[in-house]
């Protein structure tokens, strides 16, 4: 059987940062700011995957979570935004 690893400091720091980032996304009320927070959160998740030794998942998360999804959401918000706002 493989010896069970111990979580190192960097992994704990990044896990805490991801939990904090997710909380910020949920607690943000303004839609545009929420999308930007989501983008930062995607970046944090990408760092998390990198620290946990999954560089290929990092690349996917970096592009989809931090770039593609926020762009599509911002465009959708721009489309439905009311003129007076």
């Amino acid at each position, binding site marked *: 059987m493989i010896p069970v690893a111990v979580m190192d400091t960097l992994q704990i720091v990044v896990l805490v940062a991801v939990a904090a980032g997710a909380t910020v996304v949920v607690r943000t009320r303004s839609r545009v700011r929420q999308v930007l927070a989501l983008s930062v959160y995607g970046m944090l998740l990408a760092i998390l995957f990198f620290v946990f030794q999954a560089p*290929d998942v990092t690349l996917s998360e970096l*592009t989809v979570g931090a770039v593609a999804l926020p762009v599509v959401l911002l465009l959708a918000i721009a489309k439905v935004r009311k003129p007076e706002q």
Partner: protein
Amino acid sequence: MTPGQRRWFFLIAAAGLVACYLWAFAGLPGFGDYPGPYGQEVLRQAVRQTHATGVVSAVNFEYRGFDTVGEEFILFAAAAGMSVVLRRLRQERESEPAGEAANQAGGAATPATSSAMRVPALLMVGPTALIGWWLASHAQTDPSGGFQGGVILASAFILIYLSGEFLAFRRLSPVALLDAVEAVGAAGFAAIGLAALVMNLPYLDNYLPLGQFPGAVSSSGTIALISFFVGLEVAAAFVLIVGEFLSQTLLRRRSA
């Protein structure tokens, strides 16, 4: 149900949830403990069997290649469905003069793109496209793959839009071309698998020469080829999706 009853209902349910959650946590294996035999076996065999040093790609495009075909067509169906829905909306809008007036009110104040945005975005287009292309064509040797490469390639097009060059964005990515590239990417993957059937092999069997050196770019047979087709499909699908959303947004802006 009165508010009091509702609160009790919530408290009981929350207590049950917390209890189940803690119980599940207590039964989790230790951190980093991997009891599955399959992963260890793949790690032992993959490089020898496929000549791909990117073992994740070997799993994605060879051992579990059939799953990846399914995922590929999920994205294909999503992009196709989205363009169908948004195109119909655009036609409705164009044939409806009352909507135009409302649109004109909406898009009055669109500031021009600043140089601080335009210059870095344009500078990043080339490197981004290069990285995307590299990733899509090096799945067999490195921790990359068609999906990551395709999305990064698509973000090069998004950068062109961010630099304020919407017309260049549209000229570089006409919808008909994107549709064709996406179809070629998705069909290429399926066709590589079907070709194996013609040769009396299992679907998606790796029938191409594996190359002499594990880790060479020309090695790993169908894995590299499939990854490249996935890259084409994903890049086209993402540019198509973002482009359709952009057209929807700018339609209103442009009529102002």
